[in-house]
């Protein structure tokens, strides 16, 4: 009950911060917790349960990748890959573990594998001025500044920033997803915020 209330608060807080695609769980799934839905998918291959989880989290996973790889098309591909890994790993899911850190642990590994592959490619898409396939209306000077600032963070800080502000995880969830201590996640976040403030000009517009 307490966990459910916590989730609702988290969802409300997140929804205020970020306009994810509208919540449109299949009928009858609205009240189900993530863990219940995932357990149902693992046990019965219930497609509706998986779709509900997709609709709840595809936006957050997409946001995590979008600023992690700076390419919209690639971010969508990696989001798709992540949900396919969730599908394949469904029998590994332990209901005792919260769903969100489990999902983002998979996403983080997908991102790492992507970077390992990319580092062996001769060309890098992150050259200065690269905008990926961002829609033109979103490519304002401010957007570019934010993207560059996030890009310039050391990887361990950027990971926490992406999970905290783009994926909307709490610090204990970030710690669980990355296999680090909660304090370590907070320290990285604190350092990242300081660096971002400096890069973005003190946080004022």
């Amino acid at each position: 009950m307490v966990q459910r209330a916590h989730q609702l608060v988290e969802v409300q807080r997140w929804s205020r911060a970020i306009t994810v695609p509208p919540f449109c769980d299949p009928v009858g799934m609205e009240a189900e917790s993530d863990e219940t839905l995932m357990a149902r998918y693992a046990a019965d291959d219930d497609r509706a349960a998986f779709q509900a989880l997709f609709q709840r989290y595809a936006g957050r996973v997409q946001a995590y990748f979008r600023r992690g790889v700076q390419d919209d098309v690639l971010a969508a591909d990696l989001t798709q890959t992540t949900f396919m890994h969730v599908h394949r790993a469904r029998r590994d899911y332990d209901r005792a573990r919260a769903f969100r850190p489990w999902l983002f642990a998979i996403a983080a590994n997908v991102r790492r594998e992507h970077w390992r592959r990319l580092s062996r490619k001769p060309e890098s898409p992150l050259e200065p001025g690269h905008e990926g396939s961002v829609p033109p209306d979103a490519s304002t000077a401010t957007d570019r500044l934010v993207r560059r600032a996030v890009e310039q963070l050391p990887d361990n800080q950027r990971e926490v920033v992406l999970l905290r502000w783009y994926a909307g995880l709490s610090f204990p969830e970030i710690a669980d997803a990355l296999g680090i201590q909660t304090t370590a996640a907070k320290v990285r976040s604190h350092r990242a915020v300081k660096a971002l403030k400096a890069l973005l000009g003190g946080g004022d517009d």
Partner: protein
Amino acid sequence: MTEEVDVDPRIEADAERAAQVPPDLWARVEADLDRRGPRDPLVSLPTPVRRLLGGAGLLAFGVGLVGIQGVREDLSGGAWTTFAVCGAMFVLGSLAAAAFSLRDRASRPLPGWPWAPLAWSLMVGGSAVLPWPGMTGVPAAMHAYCFWATSVMVVLSTIWLALLERAEKPVAWRVALAGAGSGLAAFVFQSVFCPGVDLVHLVVGHGGAGVVWSVLAVAVAFGLSLRRR
């Protein structure tokens, strides 16, 4: 350093935009779900079961290799014990490598440093247990025979482990571990048949196949992994 840190509004706005999902993404995921491949039953098994099957496959291919070629006859009781202890060490190492190659994607990332002592201990262990009990003066023709016999096991075992791996595209470090595990196991099982302990013979005939095929498998994995969806 409080839990709730004020985030720059520009980052909030950026996050808001970044969370917009392409409208056809669920349809793409669903199409992938419906496109069930022949590997689906295997990769959908829980990770402990996949690991068990991977290890069992490795041992089965080894036993098959020995079954086809026969068991060497030069060892007596004490020498067999020495050989069995040494071999078991290598086989355990190969099973560990196979298990690591089938790691679950939701597992926490491993730090890099344990790999160095692991490789080191394997080297020290190897140098401590070798030379195995056996005969020297192996004719050169045997090098090629043993190389191809070992190759059969390495290739089959690596393919078997790759079939159990969940990624659509091969991941180089997983393929490398699968190849190393297969090579290590093949090294031991080939020695159950072949009594040769000349250094050149062990390196070329028993160990070379593992190295050659693993390197080739990793090269192929690199190539395939670079191809975009």
